[in-house]
């Protein structure tokens, strides 16, 4: 199962847009790397990214490569089509990443909806959507 695209409807792909302080995240995605923003001052991870650390108000932020590993925090299964690009059924998962305080919305690139469970270990895998955009998705850790 997992996510399957109906590429006839690629025009309905929502191309990520970024504010100035988010560009590092999406540029890394284009290179098939998952990075998260971290405050150099206090170590807080900031995701989605922001212009300043919300804990200590430092502007000294960096992009840190993610381990790509996490666990399922919650999920839904689309069974009724909303956007024709995405063939139903497909899963949207909220992954709690190993990086403390980071959660990430994505899809399952492998596996079946009925096999998902809370705390299930998953790891990132990049899936090409179109010529420009790969997206970080997840697969079960074998």
């Amino acid at each position, binding site marked *: 199962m997992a996510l399957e695209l109906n590429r006839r409807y690629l025009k309905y792909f*929502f191309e990520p*847009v970024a504010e100035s302080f988010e560009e590092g995240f999406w540029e890394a995605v284009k290179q098939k790397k998952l990075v998260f923003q971290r405050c150099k001052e206090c170590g807080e991870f900031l995701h989605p990214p922001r212009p300043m650390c919300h804990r200590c108000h430092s502007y000294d932020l960096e992009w840190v490569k993610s381990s790509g590993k996490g666990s399922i*925090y919650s999920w*839904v299964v689309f069974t009724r089509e909303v956007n024709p690009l995405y063939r139903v059924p497909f899963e949207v998962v909220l992954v709690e990443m190993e990086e403390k305080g980071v959660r990430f919305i994505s899809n399952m690139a492998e596996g079946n909806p009925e096999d998902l469970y809370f705390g299930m270990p998953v790891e990132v895998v990049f899936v090409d959507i179109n010529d420009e955009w790969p997206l970080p998705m997840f697969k079960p850790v074998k």
Partner: protein
Amino acid sequence: MTIKNKACIVGIGSTEFSRASGRSEIHMAVDAAMAACRDAGLKPEEIDGAVKFGTAGQTSTEFTTETDVARCLGIPNLRYFAEAPWGGGACCATILHAALAVSAGMANYVLCFRSLKPASGTVRYGRPANIPIDSHWSYTMPFGFASPTSWVAMFTRRWMYETGATNEQLGWVAIVCRENAAVNPRAIFYGRPITMEDYFNSPMLCDPFRMHDTCLENDGAVALIVTTPERAKDLRQKPAYITSAAMATGWDSYCMTSYYREKIGIPEMEEVGKELWRQSGLTPKDIDVAQFYAAFTSLVPMQMEALGFVGVGEGGPFCQGGDRIRPTGELPINTSGGMLSESYIHGMNMIAEGMRQIRGTSTTQIKDVENVLVTGGLGVPTSALILSQGR
């Protein structure tokens, strides 16, 4: 200092609720505003303040500005105008703004309104064409995560896991709301109750939500008029006093996708609750009937927990069997059928129903009502009100 007893709602106006209104949002807003003026016993030109809705960036017609309405009603001048954003989260906030305005002397009579046409208009929530270009959506939309049903389903599943709540318990919320709508001639689902079998047989839209877990999509408008208690004495109707009114964003708030904070449920409503009880000096036990914003069934037991009606993990069991939330139960809910079964007007129809409970004119009237709770939309910054019989 609080807002308690400094303002009251004195007029309710509504269009019919339908699947095809045959007229524009502005037209319906004008119809509802005129009905509210007649109900209150006011001339439209006496209105001198207005509060409108905002959503998270859709199309301009949907916004139906206060000037659109003022022009059509022949209002000579609005000396107070404001917008309460965040879709359903705004509903009680419009009244809060109006109460602030009249109690500070910024306006005498403030019109709060919402007009929606999702059933037959061009703006339909959750369709790909309507996605606003705003960078925070980049973390959800590219993954096909593109409907309010799915966004609320995400935090609902986590809440069900943490509390042990079941789909059957959610089914009871749907059933009780349909029972209330079944005796309400205004309701889209007038005369059409459902059974638990109907609930489980309704199509799965986005697991864990079936069709009967989700709200209506219909056309209609509701308008309400707020003034001071002194001015209310000269008007036609018994006023509904504003005992408390609150808004909250909570920590790390996004539009519908606040998945990055410690709790992904509805912490905004916990914040709203603290403020409601502080301002009013009341406790959940003092609430005789609640109009819980329920675009989705789970939001009813989740709000019961967030506002302290029950403990964490007790919301689901409270709804089991339906008796405790029925009109004869400990906490009657959504007596018009609410947004699951009466009409989806971003919560404004639920404020109107709260007023009917104070006036004694509901189709499912609760006995001896002193205090009514009305809440705003969840998953977004939100608001709530307690309406009372007053002094």
